[in-house]
C-alpha cells in the first residue's frame, strides 16, 4: 500500500510538471490557434534562468523562482513579437517549421552559452526527507504538490477576473468577432505568450531542484505536453491539466510495476487510445479556456 502511495506521489509530481507546461501550450493553441513546438525549450530556458538566479546570483529560492518566471514572461513577449507575429497568418506548415526551428536554435544556443555539462540546483528542501514509516518523500516534492494548485488557481483567477484574461477567453471563442468589436487581438496574443512562458518558467523553478538541467531537456517534454493537450481536448486548458496528471500517474505506475524503460511510451499509448475512443479528447470538442 505504501508502495502504491509512493508511486502516486511521484506520478503527481511528474504530472505537476507536465500540467504547467501543457497548460501554457493549450493556452497558446486555445487563444492564438498555434502549436508552439518550442514550448519545451521555454521550460529549459526557465530552468537556466532559475539556475542563474539561484546559483549564480545566489538569490533566495522564492525570489529566484519568481525572477525565472518573470524572465520567461519577458522572453515570451520577445518570442511573440519576433517569431509568432510574422507567422500568425501563415499556413500551419509555416508555423510548424518556424516553431520547430526555434526549438532547435534555442537548444543549440543553450549548448553554446551554458555548455553541455548538466547543472543542478538542489534547494535545502530537496535533500531533506519526510519519513512516515517506510515512506520517504523529499520535502521539495511536497512543496511542488502544494504550490502547483496555487499556480493553477492564480491562472484561473487571471483568465476569469482580469481584463486581459477575459479578452483571452473571448478570443478563444471567436477571434473575428473580437476584432470586430475592437479587441486588440495582437495584444491578447502577446499576453497569451507571456502567460504561457511564465507558466513554463514557474514550472522549471518549481521542479528542477529535484532533477537536473541540460540543453535538450525540453524535447521530450514538448511531446508529453502535446500528448496531454490532445488527450485533454485540443486547446481546452483544464482538460490539458487533468490529462497531464493522468499521464504522470500512468507513467509512474507503469515505470514502477511494468517497465521503467518503456514508461515514456505509455503517455503516447494513452493519447492513441483516447483518440480512438474519443477523437476530440476526453472532454470532447471544447476548444476554449
Amino acid at each position, binding site marked *: 500500500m505504501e508502495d502504491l502511495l509512493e508511486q502516486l506521489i511521484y506520478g503527481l509530481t511528474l504530472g505537476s510538471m507536465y500540467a504547467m507546461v501543457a497548460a501554457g501550450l493549450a493556452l497558446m493553441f486555445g487563444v492564438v490557434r498555434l502549436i508552439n513546438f518550442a514550448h519545451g525549450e521555454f521550460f529549459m530556458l526557465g530552468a537556466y534562468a532559475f539556475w542563474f538566479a539561484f546559483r549564480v546570483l545566489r538569490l533566495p529560492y522564492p525570489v529566484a523562482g519568481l525572477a525565472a518566471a518573470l524572465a520567461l514572461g519577458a522572453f515570451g513577449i520577445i518570442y511573440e513579437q519576433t517569431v509568432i507575429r510574422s507567422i500568425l497568418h501563415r499556413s500551419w506548415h509555416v508555423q510548424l517549421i518556424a516553431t520547430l526551428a526555434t526549438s532547435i536554435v534555442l537548444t543549440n544556443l543553450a549548448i553554446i552559452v551554458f555548455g553541455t555539462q548538466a547543472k*543542478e540546483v538542489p534547494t535545502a528542501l530537496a*535533500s531533506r526527507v519526510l519519513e512516515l514509516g517506510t515512506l520517504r518523500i523529499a520535502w521539495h516534492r511536497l512543496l511542488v504538490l502544494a504550490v502547483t494548485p496555487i499556480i493553477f488557481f492564480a491562472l484561473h483567477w487571471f483568465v476569469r477576473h482580469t481584463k486581459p484574461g477575459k479578452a483571452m477567453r473571448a478570443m478563444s471563442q471567436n477571434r473575428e468577432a473580437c476584432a470586430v468589436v475592437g479587441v486588440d487581438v495582437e495584444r491578447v496574443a502577446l499576453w497569451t505568450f507571456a502567460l504561457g512562458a511564465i507558466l513554463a518558467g514557474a514550472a522549471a523553478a518549481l521542479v528542477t531542484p529535484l532533477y537536473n538541467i541540460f540543453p535538450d531537456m525540453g524535447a521530450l517534454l514538448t511531446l508529453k505536453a502535446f500528448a496531454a493537450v490532445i488527450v485533454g481536448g485540443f486547446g481546452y486548458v483544464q482538460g490539458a491539466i487533468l490529462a497531464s496528471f493522468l499521464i504522470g500517474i500512468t507513467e509512474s505506475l507503469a515505470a514502477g510495476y511494468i517497465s521503467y*524503460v518503456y514508461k515514456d511510451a505509455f503517455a503516447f499509448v494513452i493519447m492513441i487510445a483516447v483518440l480512438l475512443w474519443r477523437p476530440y479528447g476526453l472532454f470532447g470538442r471544447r476548444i476554449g479556456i
Partner: protein
Amino acid sequence: MKTIVSLLMTLLAAAPAWAQPIRVGFASAMSGPSAITGEGVMWGATMAVEEINAKGGIMGHKVLAFFADNKGTPGEAVSAVRKLVDVDKVDVIVGQTHSGACLGALPIIKELQVPQVTEACSNPKIRELSGVGGNEWQFRVNIDDAIMANTFSKYIGQQVKSVSIVAQNDDFGRGAAAAYDAAFKKFGVTLVSTEFFDRGQADYRPLLTKIKRANPDAVLLVMLASDASVFLRQYRELGLKPRLFARGSVATVEFLDLVKDNPGVGDGVIEATFWTAALDPDWEKRWLERWKTPVRIHGSLAALTFKYAVVPAVELALKKYGKADRKTIRDALEQLDVKDTPLGPIKFDDHHQAWINMVLIEMKGGQLRLLEKIPTSPAILQ
C-alpha cells in the same frame, strides 16, 4: 617595395619548415543528450594536438585536428565519418566515444578504408567484429565490458551475493548488462533484476522503488555522470542501503562537480574503469589551467589515444614506409607496441584490441581513491 619583399622572404625563411601535415579526425557526440562527451573530446584533442605541435609535430609533420559530430548514434556516426574523410581528408580517425556510434561507423570506415582508433566504446561486439576475419580498419585502445565484467564480477562476488543492474538504454548499457549477466553466473552472483532507462530522465523514483522491492545486496550502475547525479540523489532520498558498484563515469571528477553541494551522495560507489585523473595528475593539472573546468574522462581518453596510439603509429609508418597515409598508418597500428602509458601497454591483438589496465576507483567524502590497478589479458575471457 624591395624592403617589403626582402622582409617577407626573411619571415618565410624563419618560419618552421613543416612537412605535409597529418590530418587527424575526432568523432564524438557534439550535440544531443550526450554532447558533454564531444565537448570534452574537443577540449582534450585540442590540448593534445597543440602539445604535439609545440614539440615539432610528428617527425616534422604538423598535426591538424578535425572534428565531427556523431550525436552518439549509429546513423550520425556514418555522416561523421563521411565528413571527416570526404571533406577534411583525414588520415586517421579517433572516436566514436559511444558504442552505438562505433558499431554504426564500422561498415563505413571499411568502405572508405580509413583507420579508426576507438578510445571509449565498450560494447563487446566491437572486438568480435574487428581485426582478423572482420573489419581490418578498426582498432580499440579501451578494454570492453566483457573483459571488465569478468574481472569486476569476481571482485563483486567476493563482497555481495545478489545484484540489480540499472543500465542506460543504448548499445553501451545493453552490452554491459549482457556481459555482467554472463559474468555474474560464472562467479556465483545472483542477478535479481535488470532495469534500463533512457538518458536524461528526470525521475528515477519509480525505478528505485522497484529496486527497494527486489532488495538486492548491491546495485550495479551502468551510466554516465549527469544521469548518476540525479539517480544517486534520489537513491539517498529513498534511503536505499544496497552497496553501489558502477561502470560509465560515476566515480569521476565530473560527477563530483555536479554534486559539489552534497558530495556524500556518491559515498561508497566503487567503479570499474580504465582511466581516472589519478593516472595522469599532470594532465589533469594542465586541463584545469587550460579549460577552468574539471577534467573530462572521454576527452582525456581521446587525447591519450591520440598521444599513445596514433602518434607512435604515424611515427612508425614514417620510419618504416617513408609515408603516413591511411594504409601505412593502419599497418603501423597492427605492429604498434607501446609499453608505458598512463593507461597501460598498448599493443593490438588479432582482433585489434589493446589490453590496457583496468582500475577500480572508490568515491568517498567527495574524494576519489584508486583502489586497484589490474593488468588485463585475453586469458580473462577463458
